[in-house]
C-alpha cells in the first residue's frame, strides 16, 4: 500500500505550564515520598509514647505551643506568595512571579525565625531520651526540607530577576508551589502531634 495512518502533532504546544506537566507529577511523587517519611515518624511518636509510663520523661518540660501557633500565621500566609508566583508563571508575568516568590521567601523566613527562637526554649535534646529523639527528628527533617525548598526559591528568584529565563524555568516556578503547599500541609499534623499530642495522649498512664 502506498499510504499509512499518520497523527500530526505539530499543532500541539512544546511545553505546558500546569498540573498537566510531567514535572508536576514528578513533584507530587516526591511529596508522597516525603509524606511517607513524616507519617512514619508520626506513627513512631505514638509508638514510643505507648512504650513508657510517663511522657515526656520525668524532668522534661513539654514544648510550649504558643510560639509555634503564632508561627502558623506567616507560614500559611506564605502560601499566598506561592500561589501568586505559580499563577504568574503560567501567564509569564515576570513582576508577579518575583513578587510572589519574594513574599513566599520572606514569610517563610519569618516562620523559620520564630521556630529557631522556639527551639532555644526546649529543655531536651535529641540525645536526652526517646521523646527528645523523635521530636527533634521530626523538627529537623521538616526544617531541612523547608530550607532546601527556600534555597530553590531563592535561586529561582535570581534567575527570574536576571531576565534570562524561558518556559522551562516558568514550569519550575509553577511546580515549586506544590512542594511548598505540601511542606505547609504536612507541618499541621506534625505541629499537632508535637505540641498538642501529649495533652491528648496523657502525661502519665
Amino acid at each position, binding site marked *: 500500500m502506498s499510504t499509512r495512518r499518520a497523527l500530526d502533532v505539530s499543532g500541539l504546544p512544546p511545553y505546558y505550564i500546569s498540573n498537566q506537566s510531567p514535572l508536576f507529577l514528578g513533584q507530587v511523587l516526591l511529596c508522597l515520598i516525603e509524606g511517607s517519611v513524616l507519617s512514619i515518624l508520626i506513627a513512631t511518636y505514638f*509508638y514510643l509514647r505507648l512504650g513508657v509510663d510517663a511522657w515526656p520523661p520525668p524532668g522534661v518540660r513539654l514544648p510550649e505551643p504558643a510560639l509555634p501557633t503564632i508561627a502558623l500565621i506567616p507560614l500559611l500566609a506564605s502560601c499566598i506568595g506561592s500561589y501568586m508566583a505559580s499563577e504568574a508563571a503560567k501567564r509569564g508575568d515576570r513582576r508577579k512571579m518575583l513578587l510572589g516568590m519574594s513574599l513566599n521567601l520572606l514569610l517563610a523566613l519569618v516562620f523559620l525565625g520564630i521556630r529557631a527562637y522556639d527551639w532555644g526554649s526546649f529543655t531536651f535534646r535529641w540525645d*536526652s531520651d526517646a521523646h527528645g*529523639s523523635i521530636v527533634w527528628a521530626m523538627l529537623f527533617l521538616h526544617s531541612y526540607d523547608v530550607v532546601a525548598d527556600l534555597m530553590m526559591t531563592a535561586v529561582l528568584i535570581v534567575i527570574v530577576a536576571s531576565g534570562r529565563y524561558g518556559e522551562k524555568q516558568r514550569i*519550575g516556578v509553577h511546580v515549586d508551589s506544590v512542594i511548598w503547599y505540601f511542606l505547609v500541609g504536612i507541618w499541621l499534623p506534625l505541629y499537632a502531634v508535637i505540641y498538642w499530642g501529649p495533652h491528648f495522649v496523657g502525661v502519665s498512664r
Partner: protein
Amino acid sequence: MNPVLTERPIDHSQDLAQEEELAKTWHNLRGLSGWLSVTTHQQIGMRYIVTAFVFLLLGGFEALLMRLQLATPNNTLLGPGGYNRTFTMHGTTMMFLFAVPMMEGMGIYMVPLMIGTRNVAFPRLNAFGYWMFLGGGLLLYGGALTNTIPDAGWFAYPPLSGPQFSSGKGVDVWAQMITFTEISAMCVAVELIVTILRMRAPGMSLNRMPLFCWSMLVQSFMVIFAMPAVMIASTVFLLNDRTIGTHFVNPAEGGDPILYQHVFWFFGHPEVYIIFLPALGMVSSIVETHCRRGVFGYPAMVLSLVGNAFIAFGLWVHHMFATGLPQIGEAYFTAASMMIAITSGIQIFCWLATMWSGRIHLTAAMHFVLGFIFIFVLGGMTGVMLASIPLDLQVHDTFFVVAHFHYVLIGGALFPLFGGFHHWFPKFTGRKINEKPGKISFWILFAGFNLTFFPMHLAGLNGMPRRVYTYSPEMGWGLTNLLATAGAVLIATGGVVFIANAIQSRKFGAVADSNPWEGGTLEWATSSPPAQWNFTNLPVIKDRYPLWTERENPGIVTGMRNDRREVLVTSTLDAYPHHRLVLPGSSIWPLITAVGVSIGLAGSVAAFSWYYVATVLGAIGLIGWFWPREPLEIEP
C-alpha cells in the same frame, strides 16, 4: 486542537532524512566526558544491569564462602567474625545492590521501548540515580578494602547493631549505603511512574499496555511508600543512635528494638515484592511471545499485580511472630500472609492457561519460566506454612526459612531474570543467544539450586538455626550441609556456562533482526539493538499487541521536531496526545551532583555535620543542573 489520524502517502526518502536528523540529535558525545554525561535510557539501563550483575557475582562469591565453611562440622575456613561479615555482605549485596537495581535496570531499558517513546521523562534524574547506586556499592565495598565491614546481618537488629555491641564503623557504612540505594530506587520509581503514565504512545490506553510495564508501574508505587521506612530505620533510628546518641531503638531511656523491627519490616516485606513484581512482568513477556498468544486473563493479571502490592504492605509482622506480640494482632497477619498467595496464584493459573492454549516454543527463555513455576510455587507453599504462627515459631530463624526465601527469591526473581536475559538478548546486543548452552545452563542451575536449598528445609526442622558459623558433628546436620555445598558449586557452574554463552553469543552469535521471536509488543519494532532514539516514527496504537495486528499498516506520529530531543506527552488513562516535551541532552551535572551528595553522605558515617556538606555540594550540583541554557524560549 486534538490531532486526528489521517491517511498520508508513504515517503521513504522522508523517513531516511528523518533518521539522519534523529541520529544527530540523539547522538551521545564521545570520549570519557561523553560517557559520563549520558542521559539516554538504553545506556543507563544497561549500566544498571551490568553493575548489578557484577554485584550478583560478588554476592555469589560470598555465598560460596559461606557454603564452604558450613560444608563440614567444626570447619575452620572462616572464624565467627569472618563468617558474620560474609553473611552480612552476602545478604546486603544481593538485596540492595543486585536485586532491586537489576530490576530497575531492566525497567529503565525496556519501558520506553514497550510504550513507544524515546527516553524517560527525566533523563538527567535517570543518570543521577545510577551514579548514586554505584556510589552506594563503592561505599560498601570500599569499606571492605579498609576492613570496615558490617557484621550484624543484612537487617542489622539493634541492640546488637547499636553503639554498645557493634563497635567500629561497619554498621554505619551499612546504614548509609542504604541511603544511596534508596535514593537511586526513588529516582527510578519517579522516573518510571511519570514515563508510564504520561509518555505512552498515542492510543496505548492503560489496558493496552504490556504487563511488564504494569508490573514496573505498580512496583514503583511500592518503592515510593516502602523505601522511606528503611531510610528511617537505618539512618534516622540506627545510625543516629550510633553516632549522635539518640534513643529511638536503644533500650536505654525509652528506645525500643521492636520499633526498629516494625519499621524495617514495613519496608522489608514490600521489598521482596518490589523485587518480585518486575520478574512477574518478565514472565508475562516471555510466555506470551514464546507461546504465541497474549497472556490469558489480562484484567485478572493487572488486578493481581495491584492486589499483590496492596496486600504486601499488610504482612510485615510475619517476620516478628517470635517477639511475643499479642496473638489477636498476629492472627491478622497470618490471614494476610496466606491471602497474598491468591494474587500470586491467579497469575500462575493465567500463565498455565496461556501455555495450555498457546503454541509453546521451548526456547531457553521458556525453560527458565518453567523452572520459575516449579521453584517459586514450592517456595510459595513453604511461605504458606510460615504464615501459620505455630509452624513459624518452630522454623523461624532456622535454615527452613533460608530455604524458603531462596526458593521464592531465586525461583521468583532470578529465574525469570535469566529468562528475560535470553529473551531480550537479541534486542540488547543485536545477536541471537545460543539456545543449546542456554538450556544447559538452565538445567545446571535448576539442579544445583534444588540440591543446595531443598535439604535446608530438613536441616531447619532438625534444629539448625540461621547465621551459625559452625556446628558440631553430633547434631547430625553434616550430610544436608555437604549436599547444599555441592549444589552451590553446581550453581556457580551454571552461572559460568551462562556468562560464557552470553560472551560467546555476543561476539559470534547469528545476527538478529528487529523481531527474531516474532513478538507482539513494541520493543520488537525497533532495530536490534535499538537506535538511540528508539523509533524513527513514534507509533500510534490500536491494540495490545501492535506487532501482531498492525504489521501491515502501523499508525505513526508525524509533526514532531527531530532537531531537538522531543517526545510526546499523552493523557494518563487513554493516551490522547496532549503536548510535546523537549528533553535535555547529555549533561555532566547529574554526575557532579551525585559525587557531591556521595561525599557528604559517606562523611556522615563519621560525623553528623557531613550532611551539611552533602547539602551544599548537592545544591551546587543542582544549580548547575537547572541553570537556564540556550535556547531559553521553546519554539513550537
